[in-house]
């Protein structure tokens, strides 16, 4: 991954390499999987990415990852209530999936630890691109997670909530979901826990023809945790994916979104909110490939920056030469509430087709004073009025999801954040 020579390993790099040696005998996997693990740790031996690697320019992982906790087999994480009542919950507790799998009509669930040994998923462990540090870290150490198969035509009545809950130490989890043709589902990916953990979590989603999925990533790690996550999706013909990402925690967070439209008529929507506080670093990096003609995508990212928080959004859209009639729009809006906070936005459009509509925009603003005046002129005190306006700035993105139960659930998560950070 990182081609320049690194004369001296950092503490974190050394800790990861040592941990691999120690963990190896415990890691599940057949021969093919174990070979992928070897490749992955070799990549890490080459050094964690630095700011000299373009895709890591704003998140110098080698510098920012100052320490790596040991694995903690004694740590106990508990399942939590799902964000939408009555959801089907699949918990991964401190890196271990549940032995008792739920019985959901039209859904087949397997523990990933078992899938890793049956020879079927080794190709999915390959890195994407040349600088895939999160993919490498996860492939080297992943021990469990879930493999979920939603049958063709199945329409899930209730959301499926995949919980990745840590209680310190290291956890490396993979959540793979295949959604069959014409199937419909709401999937919640919940990332939370406590302690100074290092978490790597990779989600893989394949959408069959005409499948429709709303996938919500709700990340609420404590401000002591490092959270390195990746969401990868392939969108088949006429399929529709709405991905919602909410970052509301974590000390060092990178959420990568890697999406490829592989079938005509595929439609991708990304909505993201980053609620940034304290002395934290949060990076959302998207790489979207429009690989076939007649596909559409829109991305809207809203950021609230307080304290000394730093945020990053990188949005790369590749429109391949053959991908005519692509329609892609991207916007990143930041509400900067403190002088010490910062947000970096980097849109990148690489377009090789000549008949496309693509655009991007970015804004950084403070609270609109005329809006504040209006609310105060109705007797709402300044602090409450500011709170309403900040919440409104991000709530707008949530309301677009247009599903009452989901909107209410996410607004509760939002209220929770404002309660502790307002």
């Amino acid at each position, binding site marked *: 991954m990182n081609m320049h020579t690194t004369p001296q390993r950092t503490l974190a790099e050394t800790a990861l390499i040592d941990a691999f040696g120690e963990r190896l005998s415990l890691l599940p996997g057949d021969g093919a999987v174990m070979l992928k693990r070897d490749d992955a740790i070799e990549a890490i031996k080459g050094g964690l990415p630095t700011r000299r690697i373009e895709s890591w320019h704003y998140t110098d992982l080698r510098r920012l990852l100052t320490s790596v906790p040991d694995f903690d087999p004694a740590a106990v994480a508990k399942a939590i209530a799902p964000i939408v009542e009555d959801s089907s919950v699949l918990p991964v507790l401190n890196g271990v999936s549940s032995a008792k799998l739920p019985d959901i009509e039209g859904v087949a669930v397997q523990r990933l630890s078992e899938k890793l040994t049956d020879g079927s998923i080794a190709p999915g462990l390959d890195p994407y691109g040349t600088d895939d540090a999160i993919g490498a870290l996860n492939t080297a150490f992943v021990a469990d997670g879930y493999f979920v198969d939603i049958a063709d035509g199945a329409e899930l009545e209730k959301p499926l909530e995949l919980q990745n809950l840590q209680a310190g130490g290291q956890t490396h989890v993979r959540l793979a979901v295949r959604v069959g043709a014409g199937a419909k589902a709401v999937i919640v990916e919940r990332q939370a826990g406590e302690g100074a953990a290092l978490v790597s979590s990779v989600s893989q989603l394949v959408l069959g023809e005409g499948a429709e999925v709303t996938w919500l990533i709700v990340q609420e790690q404590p401000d002591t945790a490092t959270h390195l996550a990746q969401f990868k999706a392939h969108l088949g013909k006429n399929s529709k994916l709405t991905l919602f990402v909410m970052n509301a925690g974590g000390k060092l967070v990178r959420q990568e979104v890697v999406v490829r439209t592989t079938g005509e008529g595929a439609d991708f929507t990304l909505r993201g909110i980053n609620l940034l506080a304290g002395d934290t670093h949060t990076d959302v990096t998207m790489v979207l490939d429009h690989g076939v003609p007649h596909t559409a995508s829109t991305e809207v990212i809203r950021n609230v920056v307080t304290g000394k928080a730093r945020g990053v959004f990188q949005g790369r859209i590749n429109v391949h030469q053959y991908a005519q009639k692509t329609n892609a729009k991207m916007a990143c809006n930041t509400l900067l509430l403190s002088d010490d906070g910062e947000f970096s936005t980097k849109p990148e459009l690489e377009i090789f087709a000549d008949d496309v509509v693509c655009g991007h925009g970015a804004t950084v603003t403070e609270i609109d*004073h005329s809006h504040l005046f209006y*609310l*105060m*002129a*109705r*007797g709402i005190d300044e602090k409450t009025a500011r709170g309403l306006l900040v*919440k*409104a700035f*991000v709530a*707008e993105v949530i309301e677009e999801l247009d599903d009452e139960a989901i909107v209410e659930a996410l607004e509760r998560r939002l209220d929770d954040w404002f309660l502790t950070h307002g």
Partner: protein
Amino acid sequence: MLEIKNLHARIVDDGTEIIRGLNLTVRAGEVAAIMGPNGSGKSTLSYILAGREDYEVTEGDILYDGQSILEMDPAERATAGIFLAFQYPMEIPGVATMEFLKVAMNEQRKARGEEPLKIPEFLKRVKEAAASLNMDMAMLKRPLNVGFSGGEKKRAEILQMKLLEPKLCVLDETDSGLDIDALKIVADGVNTLRSPDRAIVVITHYQRLLQYIVPDTVHVLYRGQVIKSGDKSLALDLEANGYAGVIGQAA
């Protein structure tokens, strides 16, 4: 109720003086109309009464119930009972209208030491007020003023005024952008609020609104001063002869 004494005020940004020695007294129970040509300082006066920070009072005072309000922020003035119906109400995406109404009503109750309204009572009040203004409740489910037509925004302002029950109502060009039917509904809404312990200041460019909200006093504002005061006949006179005559007399 409202006493403005030798008020001078300027725009903070560029120092332009807009209000230049304005005197005005409005008693409880009175409906006072403030008229004047464009640029005379009418809207500025309304913003200064509400406490907008873009303007700075350099001289004089504003007394409300005998107390100066110059040191009070907009929220404190509002909870004390001052209400400005905006000429151009702000569209605030993401703030649900009902949520806004509930917060505003309860914040004001809290400031007066009253219990927050229970949800059914709140809904009942909103429904009644909306019905009296011919407003569809569906409209109130939208974000505050977003996608409202000009007339809907004005009605929403009067709705807020009815719900908040202020003691001093300032209506800034509430007639602009209203067709005749909407104007009648809005004027009826204002008229129901007339009471012996409430004062209403109606700022308008045209006499038209004053056919429906009949004022007790009429004041002509020109270059930041009240240059002439009279009863409702003054408004008719202005309508017939324009501002030029009055301005000429004062000059």
